[in-house]
């Protein structure tokens, strides 16, 4: 992986990205042309007019960038350094892949469960923290996220197939229990499982 990354230099990236952007601009011009792209005093501006000419402007800019690359007028056209610093690739790739998995999993198992896995994986890979710390952090963060968004702001986050797991919590949230009872419930949820986990670890030892 490192070998491939070191061959992919800034110079190559500059031309590859410029060509890709030029192609995207052309595709966007074609897509914009699905609507009317003319502008007359009688009919005024068509719905595709602005997107079409903005894409055309983007195409002109990318062509100038390509021209500068061919004439070696831009600093990037002479830069033979690796596009991603050697040794940093795995951080970038792993972060991008784990984020993609987080969003993908959110659609199916919901954000709260996905966050547990994401945080556990990320902390295990990037930090040198103990498993207990990682477990606690991965457990508490989704709960605090839930309390903030769902309880305080009333903004529901996606729950996917895990939604039924939250029904009892919603029942309690919107029940006629007093605020004190609700706060005690939150404290139990936040602190009881970690405390039990810590105790059982000691007991097993």
């Amino acid at each position, binding site marked *: 992986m490192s070998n491939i990354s070191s061959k992919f230099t800034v110079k190559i990236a500059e031309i590859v*990205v410029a060509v890709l952007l030029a192609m995207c601009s052309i595709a966007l011009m074609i897509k914009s042309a699905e609507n009317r792209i003319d502008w007359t005093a009688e009919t005024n501006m068509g719905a595709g007019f602005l997107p079409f000419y903005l894409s055309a402007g983007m195409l002109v800019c990318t062509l100038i960038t390509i021209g500068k690359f061919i004439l070696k007028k831009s600093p990037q056209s002479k830069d033979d350094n690796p596009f*991603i610093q050697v040794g940093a690739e795995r951080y970038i790739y792993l*972060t991008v892949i784990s984020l993609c998995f987080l969003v993908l999993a959110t659609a199916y198992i919901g954000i709260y469960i996905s966050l547990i896995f994401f945080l556990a994986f990320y902390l295990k890979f*990037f930090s040198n923290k103990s498993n207990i710390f990682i477990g606690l952090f991965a457990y508490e963060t989704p709960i605090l996220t839930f309390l903030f968004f769902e309880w305080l702001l009333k903004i529901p986050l996606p729950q996917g197939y895990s939604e039924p797991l939250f029904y009892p919590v919603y029942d309690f949230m919107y029940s006629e229990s007093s605020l004190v009872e609700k706060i005690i419930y939150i404290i139990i949820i936040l602190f009881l499982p970690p405390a039990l986990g810590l105790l059982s670890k000691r007991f097993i030892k």
Partner: protein
Amino acid sequence: METFGLLLDGIFTSLQWFNLGLLIFGCLVGLFVGAMPGLGSVNGVAILIPITFIVPPTAAIIFLAAVYYGAMYGGAISSVMLGIPGASTAVATVFDGRPLAQKGDAITALSAAAVGSFVGGTVSVILFTLFAPPLAEVALAFNAPETFALMVMAFATFVGLGGDDIPKTVFSILIGLLLSTIGLDLISGKPRLILFGMPGFLHGINFLVLAIGIYGIGEMLWTLESTKGKVQMAKMEVNMNEIGKAFKKLKSTLMAMSIGSFLGFFVGILPAAGATPASLMSYGITKQLSKNSKEFGTGVPAGVVAPECANNSASTGSMLPMLTLGIPGSPTTAILLGGMILWGLTPGPLLFTQEPEFVWGLIGSLYIANFFTLVLNIALIPAFLMVLRIPFAILAPVIFVLCVTGGYAPTQSLHDVWLMLIFGFVGYVLRKLDYPVAPAVLSIVLGPLAENALRQTLILSDGSMGIFFDFGEKPIAASIMYIALVFLLMPLAGPIKRKFFKAKSA
């Protein structure tokens, strides 16, 4: 003299223990809401409106105005500490606030944000007190052509925000504008650029999706690459001496404060403009006029002061048309206006005579809220700095969680979260190739406003662009357009001058 007496009454009203308690609580809530990515003053005020039904209208408006003010201050906190704009009004604060924090000078960045907000807020509330009725009439003279001219001026200042590579800067502006056109056409209602037939594009692209993608995900990837996951923050001592030193550095930001305060207030009073365009324009103009314009973006206090001054000034300014004409100047004031109607008040010119306690209580509370938010901000600097002491391996996933939830919350669509990830990755790649990303974010914010104004004007003028340059017909629009042209040509003047002198010396 009568105004002064009424103002004193208003200040005394807001200093009553119950109102003062609500004001301080509102400032704290606002600071927190403003600092959360994806949430802004609109969310804070909207969520808290039901609470105000149990208190008198004067106390209610004092509380909500304090939330509004606090959120304006709070937006800067996440911009500086995490590099993610808390709200659109704080997008420009990231440009210099984040580099300052990364250089180990977060105290200066936070002090600049707090003092800038205080100065902007205070200047605007003085202008509000003295000139409310005549300024409301000036605001009414701003129609679609004038608004479009103002937007062109904002875009002209953006060219100066990019680096030396003008085609890449223009590309960035154009892609931001193009992204803002995605969704339903304003006039015909036809779907535009619904890519791959995905229905998620029908509601357009929220600017926060792009901003969080670029400044949250993209920035983290950049940091991960440059430090290989081992970020070392400079050790910072927080004491009054350090804060005093940071304040001394702000002496050089007087020009930024003046531009931010007056421009912010003026843009704020215009219906449909608001604090976001004000802060972006203030940053752009301050950069253009500064002697050290090349240093902007690398962490200069003036780059934090200018947008923060302007967004606070504009938030006060936007209350002017709300109170005097019943026209909201921003989304938050639209909610406040709704609240006023629910409390049984009638916004409009008669409000000043029929409900003086309410109006002057609000104006008085703005002075007090400004003072308390400044004190709270300075007092909480050590707490904000604790964020920077969190190890990067822990802070990074927390920021990712904030990005994902912040990207989801505004529209509650996973489609937007995917877009945010894509923008983050693309933004990282483009930034590495020297494409400036800031103009794209600014353009997506102002794009819909500009398009709306342009198309309304063209309908008025039977498709003629001449209306924007006709002093006889639209003197304000024409004046702004010509000023915009000057701003547009200013970045070109430098290289031409250099070439000229080079040729002469050769």
